[in-house]
Protein backbone atom coordinates (compact mmCIF):
# COMPACT_ATOMS: atom_id res chain seq x y z
CA UNK A 1 0.00 0.00 0.00
CA UNK A 2 1.27 3.44 -0.85
CA UNK A 3 0.48 6.48 1.18
CA UNK A 4 -0.22 9.50 -0.95
CA UNK A 5 -0.80 13.00 0.31
CA UNK A 6 -3.52 14.47 -1.75
CA UNK A 7 -3.86 18.11 -2.45
CA UNK A 8 -6.98 19.63 -1.20
CA UNK A 9 -8.53 22.87 -0.16
CA UNK A 10 -11.05 23.71 2.45
CA UNK A 11 -14.41 24.87 1.35
CA UNK A 12 -13.24 28.37 2.18
CA UNK A 13 -10.82 28.40 -0.76
CA UNK A 14 -11.30 31.25 -3.15
CA UNK A 15 -11.15 31.26 -6.91
CA UNK A 16 -7.84 32.29 -8.35
CA UNK A 17 -8.75 35.35 -10.34
CA UNK A 18 -5.96 34.80 -12.82
CA UNK A 19 -6.65 31.23 -13.80
CA UNK A 20 -10.38 31.15 -13.15
CA UNK A 21 -9.84 27.68 -11.79
CA UNK A 22 -12.06 26.43 -9.03
CA UNK A 23 -10.50 24.04 -6.59
CA UNK A 24 -12.12 21.01 -5.15
CA UNK A 25 -13.51 21.53 -1.74
CA UNK A 26 -12.22 18.98 0.69
CA UNK A 27 -9.75 19.01 3.50
CA UNK A 28 -6.08 18.24 3.28
CA UNK A 29 -5.71 14.57 4.14
CA UNK A 30 -3.90 11.30 3.71
CA UNK A 31 -5.33 8.66 1.43
CA UNK A 32 -4.27 5.09 1.06
CA UNK A 33 -4.50 3.36 -2.26
CA UNK A 34 -3.38 0.20 -3.97
CA UNK A 35 -0.77 0.87 -6.70
CA UNK A 36 -2.19 -1.94 -8.81
CA UNK A 37 -5.45 -0.12 -9.01
CA UNK A 38 -3.90 3.14 -10.08
CA UNK A 39 -4.18 2.59 -13.85
CA UNK A 40 -7.25 0.52 -14.38
CA UNK A 41 -7.56 -1.06 -17.85
CA UNK A 42 -10.91 -0.31 -19.43
CA UNK A 43 -13.05 -3.33 -20.05
CA UNK A 44 -14.50 -1.72 -23.16
CA UNK A 45 -12.74 -0.02 -26.01
CA UNK A 46 -15.19 2.71 -26.67
CA UNK A 47 -13.75 6.15 -27.36
CA UNK A 48 -15.33 7.59 -24.29
CA UNK A 49 -13.82 5.01 -22.02
CA UNK A 50 -10.42 5.33 -23.65
CA UNK A 51 -10.54 9.09 -23.14
CA UNK A 52 -11.50 8.71 -19.53
CA UNK A 53 -8.74 6.15 -19.07
CA UNK A 54 -6.14 8.47 -20.56
CA UNK A 55 -7.41 11.34 -18.49
CA UNK A 56 -7.28 9.30 -15.33
CA UNK A 57 -3.77 8.16 -16.16
CA UNK A 58 -2.55 11.71 -16.72
CA UNK A 59 -4.16 12.89 -13.52
CA UNK A 60 -2.58 10.14 -11.49
CA UNK A 61 0.88 10.77 -12.91
CA UNK A 62 0.65 14.55 -12.61
CA UNK A 63 -0.82 14.48 -9.14
CA UNK A 64 2.52 13.27 -7.88
CA UNK A 65 4.26 16.32 -9.36
CA UNK A 66 1.86 18.84 -7.88
CA UNK A 67 3.33 20.80 -5.02
CA UNK A 68 1.90 23.34 -2.68
CA UNK A 69 3.59 25.78 -0.41
CA UNK A 70 2.20 28.26 2.05
CA UNK A 71 3.57 31.62 1.03
CA UNK A 72 1.52 33.92 3.23
CA UNK A 73 0.22 33.43 6.76
CA UNK A 74 -1.58 35.77 9.13
CA UNK A 75 -3.46 35.55 12.40
CA UNK A 76 -6.52 37.73 12.29
CA UNK A 77 -8.94 39.26 14.71
CA UNK A 78 -12.37 40.32 13.53
CA UNK A 79 -13.22 43.95 14.04
CA UNK A 80 -16.63 44.97 12.78
CA UNK A 81 -19.10 42.79 10.93
CA UNK A 82 -21.26 44.55 8.36
CA UNK A 83 -23.92 43.29 5.99
CA UNK A 84 -21.57 42.43 3.15
CA UNK A 85 -18.11 42.61 4.62
CA UNK A 86 -16.12 42.49 7.83
CA UNK A 87 -13.01 44.28 8.98
CA UNK A 88 -10.05 42.63 10.64
CA UNK A 89 -6.63 43.27 12.06
CA UNK A 90 -4.02 40.76 10.97
CA UNK A 91 -0.50 39.99 12.12
CA UNK A 92 1.97 38.10 9.94
CA UNK A 93 4.79 35.84 11.10
CA UNK A 94 7.16 38.81 11.26
CA UNK A 95 4.85 40.78 13.54
CA UNK A 96 3.72 43.19 10.82
CA UNK A 97 0.19 44.43 11.40
CA UNK A 98 -2.33 44.91 8.62
CA UNK A 99 -5.86 46.20 8.51
CA UNK A 100 -8.15 44.66 5.92
CA UNK A 101 -11.69 44.35 4.74
CA UNK A 102 -12.97 40.93 3.64
CA UNK A 103 -16.09 40.20 1.65
CA UNK A 104 -18.44 37.83 3.44
CA UNK A 105 -18.48 35.66 0.32
CA UNK A 106 -15.10 34.37 1.45
CA UNK A 107 -16.85 32.63 4.31
CA UNK A 108 -19.05 29.62 3.71
CA UNK A 109 -22.63 29.96 4.94
CA UNK A 110 -22.00 27.24 7.50
CA UNK A 111 -19.25 29.31 9.11
CA UNK A 112 -21.06 32.63 9.07
CA UNK A 113 -22.23 32.07 12.64
CA UNK A 114 -18.58 32.19 13.70
CA UNK A 115 -18.21 35.64 12.23
CA UNK A 116 -18.41 37.91 15.24
CA UNK A 117 -16.41 40.85 16.61
CA UNK A 118 -13.25 39.74 18.37
CA UNK A 119 -13.35 36.31 16.70
CA UNK A 120 -9.99 34.85 15.71
CA UNK A 121 -9.04 33.35 12.37
CA UNK A 122 -6.05 32.41 10.29
CA UNK A 123 -5.60 33.60 6.75
CA UNK A 124 -3.28 31.82 4.37
CA UNK A 125 -2.14 32.18 0.80
CA UNK A 126 -0.93 28.95 -0.72
CA UNK A 127 1.14 28.60 -3.86
CA UNK A 128 0.26 25.53 -5.91
CA UNK A 129 2.36 24.21 -8.75
CA UNK A 130 0.01 22.24 -10.95
CA UNK A 131 0.37 20.80 -14.36
CA UNK A 132 -1.68 23.72 -15.61
CA UNK A 133 0.69 26.20 -14.09
CA UNK A 134 1.22 28.02 -10.82
CA UNK A 135 -1.81 29.09 -8.89
CA UNK A 136 -2.45 30.85 -5.60
CA UNK A 137 -5.28 30.19 -3.23
CA UNK A 138 -6.30 32.19 -0.19
CA UNK A 139 -8.17 30.68 2.72
CA UNK A 140 -9.82 31.92 5.89
CA UNK A 141 -10.09 29.50 8.80
CA UNK A 142 -12.29 30.80 11.56
CA UNK A 143 -11.85 29.56 15.08
CA UNK A 144 -14.93 27.81 16.32
CA UNK A 145 -16.49 28.46 19.68
CA UNK A 146 -14.42 27.01 22.45
CA UNK A 147 -16.24 24.08 23.98
CA UNK A 148 -15.78 24.02 27.73
CA UNK A 149 -15.11 20.60 29.18
CA UNK A 150 -14.70 19.25 32.69
CA UNK A 151 -10.99 18.92 32.05
CA UNK A 152 -10.87 22.59 31.07
CA UNK A 153 -12.42 23.46 34.42
CA UNK A 154 -9.64 21.60 36.22
CA UNK A 155 -6.97 23.30 34.12
CA UNK A 156 -8.57 26.67 34.73
CA UNK A 157 -8.61 26.11 38.48
CA UNK A 158 -4.94 25.14 38.49
CA UNK A 159 -4.01 28.12 36.33
CA UNK A 160 -6.03 30.51 38.43
CA UNK A 161 -4.32 29.42 41.63
CA UNK A 162 -0.94 29.81 40.00
CA UNK A 163 -1.56 33.08 38.15
CA UNK A 164 -3.84 34.87 40.56
CA UNK A 165 -3.15 33.76 44.12
CA UNK A 166 -5.46 35.35 46.67
CA UNK A 167 -2.76 37.70 47.93
CA UNK A 168 -2.94 39.60 44.62
CA UNK A 169 -6.43 40.75 45.51
CA UNK A 170 -5.43 42.04 48.91
CA UNK A 171 -4.36 45.22 47.23
Amino acid at each position, binding site marked *: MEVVRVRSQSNLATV*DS*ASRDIFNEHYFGIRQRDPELELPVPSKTGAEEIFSHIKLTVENVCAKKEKEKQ*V*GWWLGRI*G*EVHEEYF*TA*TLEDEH*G*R*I*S*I*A*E*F*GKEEITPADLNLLA*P*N*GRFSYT*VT*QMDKRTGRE*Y*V*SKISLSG*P*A*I*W*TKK*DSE*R*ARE*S*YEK*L*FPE*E*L*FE*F
Partner: protein
Amino acid sequence: MGSNPPFHNISSPRIDEVELTFFGPGYGESIVVHIPGIGWGVIDSCQFGPATAKSVPPLQYLIYQKVKTLAFLILTHPHADHFLGVEQIIDYYLGRIKRVCRYAGEGARELAEYMVRGGVKGSQGASSLSAVFKALKKAVDNGAESRRLGAMTQVIPRQNVSVKNGNIEAEVLSLSPLAEDEGVYVDILRKAFRDQNGHITTIPDRDHNLIASAILISAGQVVALLGSDVERGENPSRGWRGIVGSIDTPDLAIKTLKVPHHGSPNAYYEKAFEEHARNGKITSVVTPNIRAKKQLPALEIIDKIGDYSSHVGLTSHVSYLRPVDVYDRAVARRLPAKWKVIQPSKECGMITVRYDLAGNATLRKAVSPAKWVKLGASGQ
Protein backbone atom coordinates in the same frame (compact mmCIF):
# COMPACT_ATOMS: atom_id res chain seq x y z
CA MET B 1 13.76 54.33 20.02
CA GLY B 2 15.95 51.59 21.53
CA SER B 3 19.55 52.71 21.31
CA ASN B 4 18.78 56.20 20.13
CA PRO B 5 16.28 57.84 22.45
CA PRO B 6 14.74 61.07 21.15
CA PHE B 7 15.33 62.88 24.42
CA HIS B 8 18.18 65.09 23.28
CA ASN B 9 17.47 68.79 23.64
CA ILE B 10 14.95 68.07 26.43
CA SER B 11 16.25 69.64 29.58
CA SER B 12 15.07 68.71 33.05
CA PRO B 13 12.00 70.60 34.29
CA ARG B 14 12.67 73.31 36.84
CA ILE B 15 11.74 72.47 40.42
CA ASP B 16 8.69 74.73 40.09
CA GLU B 17 7.50 73.45 36.71
CA VAL B 18 4.74 70.96 36.08
CA GLU B 19 5.71 68.60 33.26
CA LEU B 20 3.64 66.10 31.34
CA THR B 21 5.40 63.89 28.81
CA PHE B 22 3.20 61.75 26.61
CA PHE B 23 4.26 58.57 24.85
CA GLY B 24 2.02 56.82 22.37
CA PRO B 25 3.93 54.92 19.70
CA GLY B 26 0.79 53.73 17.89
CA TYR B 27 -0.05 50.91 20.23
CA GLY B 28 -0.01 51.79 23.90
CA GLU B 29 0.28 54.96 25.87
CA SER B 30 2.09 56.27 28.91
CA ILE B 31 2.40 59.62 30.62
CA VAL B 32 5.30 60.68 32.81
CA VAL B 33 4.55 63.64 35.06
CA HIS B 34 6.59 65.93 37.27
CA ILE B 35 4.64 67.71 40.01
CA PRO B 36 6.49 70.35 42.04
CA GLY B 37 6.72 69.37 45.67
CA ILE B 38 5.43 65.86 44.93
CA GLY B 39 7.92 64.40 42.48
CA TRP B 40 7.67 62.15 39.45
CA GLY B 41 4.86 59.80 38.59
CA VAL B 42 3.92 57.43 35.79
CA ILE B 43 0.45 56.78 34.46
CA ASP B 44 0.31 53.54 32.45
CA SER B 45 3.13 52.11 30.40
CA CYS B 46 3.86 51.14 26.84
CA GLN B 47 6.49 49.36 24.82
CA PHE B 48 8.10 50.21 21.55
CA GLY B 49 10.20 48.43 18.97
CA PRO B 50 10.47 45.01 17.33
CA ALA B 51 9.32 41.95 19.24
CA THR B 52 12.89 40.89 19.92
CA ALA B 53 14.04 44.25 21.27
CA LYS B 54 11.19 46.00 23.03
CA SER B 55 12.02 49.13 24.96
CA VAL B 56 9.90 50.92 27.54
CA PRO B 57 9.94 54.61 26.54
CA PRO B 58 8.62 56.01 29.84
CA LEU B 59 11.31 54.12 31.76
CA GLN B 60 13.99 55.32 29.38
CA TYR B 61 12.79 58.86 29.84
CA LEU B 62 12.82 58.60 33.63
CA ILE B 63 16.36 57.25 33.51
CA TYR B 64 17.35 60.04 31.11
CA GLN B 65 15.94 62.58 33.56
CA LYS B 66 17.93 60.90 36.35
CA VAL B 67 14.78 60.29 38.36
CA LYS B 68 15.67 58.46 41.57
CA THR B 69 12.25 57.78 43.08
CA LEU B 70 8.67 57.60 41.88
CA ALA B 71 5.96 59.32 43.88
CA PHE B 72 3.33 57.15 42.22
CA LEU B 73 2.69 54.59 39.53
CA ILE B 74 -0.84 54.20 38.20
CA LEU B 75 -2.32 51.48 36.03
CA THR B 76 -5.58 52.98 34.78
CA HIS B 77 -7.15 49.75 33.50
CA PRO B 78 -6.21 46.21 32.51
CA HIS B 79 -5.62 46.68 28.79
CA ALA B 80 -2.30 45.51 27.38
CA ASP B 81 -1.78 48.79 25.55
CA HIS B 82 -1.72 50.48 28.95
CA PHE B 83 0.25 47.99 31.03
CA LEU B 84 3.01 46.60 28.82
CA GLY B 85 6.28 47.65 30.43
CA VAL B 86 4.92 48.16 33.96
CA GLU B 87 6.98 45.22 35.22
CA GLN B 88 10.21 46.76 33.93
CA ILE B 89 9.43 50.10 35.55
CA ILE B 90 8.72 48.40 38.87
CA ASP B 91 11.83 46.25 38.65
CA TYR B 92 14.00 49.30 37.99
CA TYR B 93 12.48 51.37 40.79
CA LEU B 94 11.83 48.52 43.20
CA GLY B 95 11.91 49.85 46.75
CA ARG B 96 11.82 53.43 45.43
CA ILE B 97 8.13 53.75 44.57
CA LYS B 98 5.97 55.50 47.14
CA ARG B 99 2.55 54.48 45.84
CA VAL B 100 1.11 52.06 43.30
CA CYS B 101 -2.50 52.24 42.16
CA ARG B 102 -4.73 49.96 40.14
CA TYR B 103 -8.32 48.91 39.84
CA ALA B 104 -9.06 46.34 42.53
CA GLY B 105 -12.73 46.80 43.13
CA GLU B 106 -15.78 44.84 42.02
CA GLY B 107 -14.98 42.52 39.18
CA ALA B 108 -11.24 42.18 39.77
CA ARG B 109 -11.61 38.47 40.57
CA GLU B 110 -14.10 37.95 37.77
CA LEU B 111 -11.67 39.59 35.36
CA ALA B 112 -8.90 37.24 36.50
CA GLU B 113 -11.19 34.23 36.15
CA TYR B 114 -12.35 35.35 32.73
CA MET B 115 -8.77 35.79 31.57
CA VAL B 116 -7.74 32.39 32.94
CA ARG B 117 -10.62 30.66 31.20
CA GLY B 118 -9.58 32.35 27.97
CA GLY B 119 -6.03 31.20 28.66
CA VAL B 120 -7.13 27.58 28.85
CA LYS B 121 -8.37 28.01 25.31
CA GLY B 122 -5.19 29.62 24.03
CA SER B 123 -5.45 33.31 24.85
CA GLN B 124 -2.31 34.74 26.42
CA GLY B 125 -3.85 37.64 28.30
CA ALA B 126 -4.01 35.89 31.67
CA SER B 127 -0.27 35.42 32.08
CA SER B 128 0.46 39.03 31.03
CA LEU B 129 -2.08 40.43 33.46
CA SER B 130 -0.89 38.10 36.21
CA ALA B 131 2.68 39.30 35.71
CA VAL B 132 1.59 42.93 36.05
CA PHE B 133 -0.48 42.22 39.18
CA LYS B 134 2.45 40.31 40.67
CA ALA B 135 4.82 43.17 39.85
CA LEU B 136 2.51 45.65 41.58
CA LYS B 137 2.32 43.32 44.59
CA LYS B 138 6.12 43.12 44.60
CA ALA B 139 6.24 46.92 44.70
CA VAL B 140 3.93 46.85 47.74
CA ASP B 141 6.07 44.17 49.38
CA ASN B 142 9.01 46.49 48.88
CA GLY B 143 7.52 49.46 50.62
CA ALA B 144 5.02 51.04 48.21
CA GLU B 145 1.58 51.98 49.48
CA SER B 146 -1.29 50.50 47.51
CA ARG B 147 -4.35 52.43 46.37
CA ARG B 148 -7.48 50.99 44.79
CA LEU B 149 -8.63 53.24 42.00
CA GLY B 150 -12.23 54.33 41.94
CA ALA B 151 -14.31 57.48 41.71
CA MET B 152 -12.70 60.24 43.78
CA THR B 153 -9.75 58.15 44.95
CA GLN B 154 -6.96 60.35 46.24
CA VAL B 155 -3.81 59.02 44.66
CA ILE B 156 -1.99 61.96 46.21
CA PRO B 157 -4.24 63.68 48.76
CA ARG B 158 -4.61 67.44 48.39
CA GLN B 159 -1.75 68.98 50.29
CA ASN B 160 0.25 72.13 50.69
CA VAL B 161 3.74 71.75 49.41
CA SER B 162 6.51 74.27 49.53
CA VAL B 163 8.18 75.05 46.26
CA LYS B 164 11.04 77.52 46.18
CA ASN B 165 9.84 80.46 48.27
CA GLY B 166 6.13 79.73 48.32
CA ASN B 167 3.46 77.17 49.00
CA ILE B 168 1.10 75.60 46.50
CA GLU B 169 -1.65 73.04 46.68
CA ALA B 170 -1.13 69.82 44.80
CA GLU B 171 -3.34 66.77 44.30
CA VAL B 172 -3.70 63.68 42.13
CA LEU B 173 -7.21 62.34 41.95
CA SER B 174 -8.86 59.42 40.19
CA LEU B 175 -12.30 60.40 38.83
CA SER B 176 -13.50 56.95 37.82
CA PRO B 177 -14.64 54.18 37.44
CA LEU B 178 -18.12 55.13 38.57
CA ALA B 179 -20.19 52.67 40.61
CA GLU B 180 -22.69 51.95 37.83
CA ASP B 181 -19.95 51.20 35.31
CA GLU B 182 -18.37 48.79 37.79
CA GLY B 183 -21.70 47.02 38.23
CA VAL B 184 -22.23 46.67 34.51
CA TYR B 185 -18.68 45.41 34.11
CA VAL B 186 -19.15 42.66 36.68
CA ASP B 187 -22.40 41.57 35.01
CA ILE B 188 -20.71 41.39 31.62
CA LEU B 189 -17.88 39.26 32.97
CA ARG B 190 -20.18 36.86 34.78
CA LYS B 191 -22.31 36.37 31.70
CA ALA B 192 -19.22 35.77 29.60
CA PHE B 193 -18.02 32.76 31.55
CA ARG B 194 -20.25 30.18 29.99
CA ASP B 195 -23.47 30.19 28.13
CA GLN B 196 -25.95 27.33 28.25
CA ASN B 197 -24.21 25.46 25.43
CA GLY B 198 -20.95 25.36 27.30
CA HIS B 199 -19.27 27.91 25.04
CA ILE B 200 -17.01 30.61 26.37
CA THR B 201 -18.16 34.02 25.25
CA THR B 202 -15.50 36.54 24.39
CA ILE B 203 -16.41 40.00 25.50
CA PRO B 204 -15.47 43.00 23.38
CA ASP B 205 -12.17 44.58 24.41
CA ARG B 206 -13.80 47.94 24.91
CA ASP B 207 -15.87 46.57 27.78
CA HIS B 208 -12.76 46.75 29.94
CA ASN B 209 -12.88 50.52 29.45
CA LEU B 210 -15.77 50.51 31.90
CA ILE B 211 -13.27 50.35 34.75
CA ALA B 212 -10.78 52.85 33.32
CA SER B 213 -9.63 55.63 35.62
CA ALA B 214 -9.40 59.23 34.46
CA ILE B 215 -6.70 61.00 36.45
CA LEU B 216 -6.89 64.67 37.43
CA ILE B 217 -3.64 66.36 38.41
CA SER B 218 -3.51 69.81 39.94
CA ALA B 219 -0.55 71.84 41.16
CA GLY B 220 -0.86 75.57 41.75
CA GLN B 221 -2.85 76.98 38.84
CA VAL B 222 -2.07 74.03 36.60
CA VAL B 223 -4.73 71.38 36.09
CA ALA B 224 -4.31 68.45 33.72
CA LEU B 225 -6.71 65.64 32.96
CA LEU B 226 -5.49 62.28 31.70
CA GLY B 227 -8.54 60.64 30.18
CA SER B 228 -7.28 57.04 29.93
CA ASP B 229 -9.85 55.02 27.94
CA VAL B 230 -12.93 56.36 29.69
CA GLU B 231 -15.83 56.45 27.25
CA ARG B 232 -18.83 58.74 26.96
CA GLY B 233 -21.20 56.60 29.02
CA GLU B 234 -24.54 55.11 28.05
CA ASN B 235 -26.54 57.07 30.60
CA PRO B 236 -26.07 60.11 32.84
CA SER B 237 -24.57 57.97 35.61
CA ARG B 238 -21.83 56.41 33.52
CA GLY B 239 -18.59 57.34 31.78
CA TRP B 240 -17.86 61.00 31.06
CA ARG B 241 -21.52 61.82 31.35
CA GLY B 242 -21.44 60.56 34.91
CA ILE B 243 -18.14 62.23 35.75
CA VAL B 244 -19.17 65.63 34.40
CA GLY B 245 -22.61 65.38 35.98
CA SER B 246 -21.46 64.30 39.43
CA ILE B 247 -21.63 66.87 42.22
CA ASP B 248 -18.49 65.29 43.68
CA THR B 249 -16.37 65.99 40.61
CA PRO B 250 -14.02 68.94 41.05
CA ASP B 251 -13.74 71.77 38.54
CA LEU B 252 -12.85 70.27 35.16
CA ALA B 253 -11.48 73.49 33.66
CA ILE B 254 -7.98 72.39 32.69
CA LYS B 255 -4.81 73.36 30.88
CA THR B 256 -3.93 70.05 29.26
CA LEU B 257 -5.90 66.96 28.32
CA LYS B 258 -4.79 63.49 27.36
CA VAL B 259 -7.72 62.87 25.06
CA PRO B 260 -9.65 59.80 26.22
CA HIS B 261 -9.55 56.53 24.34
CA HIS B 262 -7.18 57.57 21.57
CA GLY B 263 -9.64 60.10 20.16
CA SER B 264 -12.47 57.65 19.50
CA PRO B 265 -16.03 58.85 18.82
CA ASN B 266 -17.19 56.63 21.71
CA ALA B 267 -15.21 58.70 24.18
CA TYR B 268 -16.06 62.18 22.92
CA TYR B 269 -18.44 64.10 25.16
CA GLU B 270 -19.01 67.67 24.09
CA LYS B 271 -20.08 68.86 27.52
CA ALA B 272 -16.80 67.66 29.01
CA PHE B 273 -14.85 69.74 26.48
CA GLU B 274 -17.00 72.76 27.26
CA GLU B 275 -15.96 72.34 30.89
CA HIS B 276 -12.31 71.76 30.04
CA ALA B 277 -12.06 74.93 27.93
CA ARG B 278 -14.11 77.17 30.22
CA ASN B 279 -11.08 79.28 31.15
CA GLY B 280 -9.55 79.25 27.68
CA LYS B 281 -8.53 76.85 24.96
CA ILE B 282 -6.56 73.86 26.10
CA THR B 283 -3.65 71.73 24.92
CA SER B 284 -4.92 68.34 23.80
CA VAL B 285 -2.72 65.32 23.24
CA VAL B 286 -3.94 62.25 21.37
CA THR B 287 -2.25 58.84 21.45
CA PRO B 288 -3.18 57.08 18.17
CA ASN B 289 -4.13 53.42 18.20
CA ILE B 290 -3.22 51.85 14.90
CA ARG B 291 -4.58 48.43 15.88
CA ALA B 292 -8.07 49.62 16.64
CA LYS B 293 -10.99 48.25 14.68
CA LYS B 294 -11.26 51.66 13.13
CA GLN B 295 -8.28 53.92 12.88
CA LEU B 296 -7.93 56.10 15.96
CA PRO B 297 -8.07 58.99 16.36
CA ALA B 298 -11.12 59.54 14.20
CA LEU B 299 -10.59 62.56 11.98
CA GLU B 300 -13.93 64.09 12.89
CA ILE B 301 -12.98 63.91 16.55
CA ILE B 302 -9.70 65.71 15.90
CA ASP B 303 -11.75 68.49 14.29
CA LYS B 304 -14.09 68.69 17.27
CA ILE B 305 -11.22 68.68 19.76
CA GLY B 306 -9.64 71.45 17.72
CA ASP B 307 -12.63 73.70 18.46
CA TYR B 308 -11.69 73.66 22.14
CA SER B 309 -7.92 73.50 21.83
CA SER B 310 -5.17 75.94 21.05
CA HIS B 311 -2.84 73.00 20.43
CA VAL B 312 -3.63 69.45 19.35
CA GLY B 313 -0.76 66.98 19.32
CA LEU B 314 -0.45 63.42 18.04
CA THR B 315 2.16 61.26 19.74
CA SER B 316 2.84 59.19 16.65
CA HIS B 317 2.40 59.31 12.94
CA VAL B 318 0.17 56.69 11.38
CA SER B 319 1.20 55.58 7.91
CA TYR B 320 0.41 52.57 5.80
CA LEU B 321 2.08 50.59 3.06
CA ARG B 322 0.49 48.76 0.17
CA PRO B 323 0.75 44.96 0.42
CA VAL B 324 2.91 44.95 -2.72
CA ASP B 325 5.47 47.09 -0.89
CA VAL B 326 5.82 44.45 1.81
CA TYR B 327 4.92 41.05 0.41
CA ASP B 328 5.84 39.11 -2.70
CA ARG B 329 3.91 40.52 -5.64
CA ALA B 330 2.09 37.25 -6.30
CA VAL B 331 0.99 37.04 -2.66
CA ALA B 332 -0.02 40.68 -2.56
CA ARG B 333 -2.25 40.17 -5.60
CA ARG B 334 -4.25 37.53 -3.73
CA LEU B 335 -5.03 39.74 -0.76
CA PRO B 336 -8.33 41.62 -0.53
CA ALA B 337 -8.38 44.97 -2.29
CA LYS B 338 -8.81 46.84 0.98
CA TRP B 339 -5.66 45.75 2.81
CA LYS B 340 -3.26 48.18 4.46
CA VAL B 341 -0.01 47.26 6.14
CA ILE B 342 0.78 49.46 9.10
CA GLN B 343 4.17 51.07 8.87
CA PRO B 344 5.59 51.44 12.35
CA SER B 345 7.67 54.47 13.15
CA LYS B 346 11.40 54.01 13.53
CA GLU B 347 11.40 56.36 16.50
CA CYS B 348 8.97 56.45 19.40
CA GLY B 349 8.37 60.18 19.55
CA MET B 350 6.88 62.08 22.44
CA ILE B 351 5.15 65.28 23.42
CA THR B 352 6.24 67.32 26.41
CA VAL B 353 4.34 70.26 27.89
CA ARG B 354 5.46 72.31 30.88
CA TYR B 355 3.84 75.03 32.95
CA ASP B 356 4.96 77.35 35.66
CA LEU B 357 2.85 77.31 38.79
CA ALA B 358 0.85 80.32 37.60
CA GLY B 359 -0.37 78.19 34.73
CA ASN B 360 1.73 79.72 31.96
CA ALA B 361 3.05 77.29 29.37
CA THR B 362 6.84 77.25 29.41
CA LEU B 363 7.39 74.45 26.91
CA ARG B 364 5.40 72.62 24.25
CA LYS B 365 7.60 70.23 22.36
CA ALA B 366 6.79 67.42 19.96
CA VAL B 367 9.65 65.08 19.15
CA SER B 368 9.14 63.42 15.76
CA PRO B 369 7.22 61.42 14.73
CA ALA B 370 4.97 63.07 17.29
CA LYS B 371 3.65 66.33 15.90
CA TRP B 372 1.26 69.19 16.48
CA VAL B 373 -1.65 69.07 14.08
CA LYS B 374 -2.98 72.34 15.40
CA LEU B 375 -0.82 75.13 16.76
CA GLY B 376 -1.73 78.21 18.74
CA ALA B 377 -1.83 81.65 17.11
CA SER B 378 1.83 82.24 17.93
CA GLY B 379 2.76 79.01 16.20
CA GLN B 380 4.32 77.64 19.36
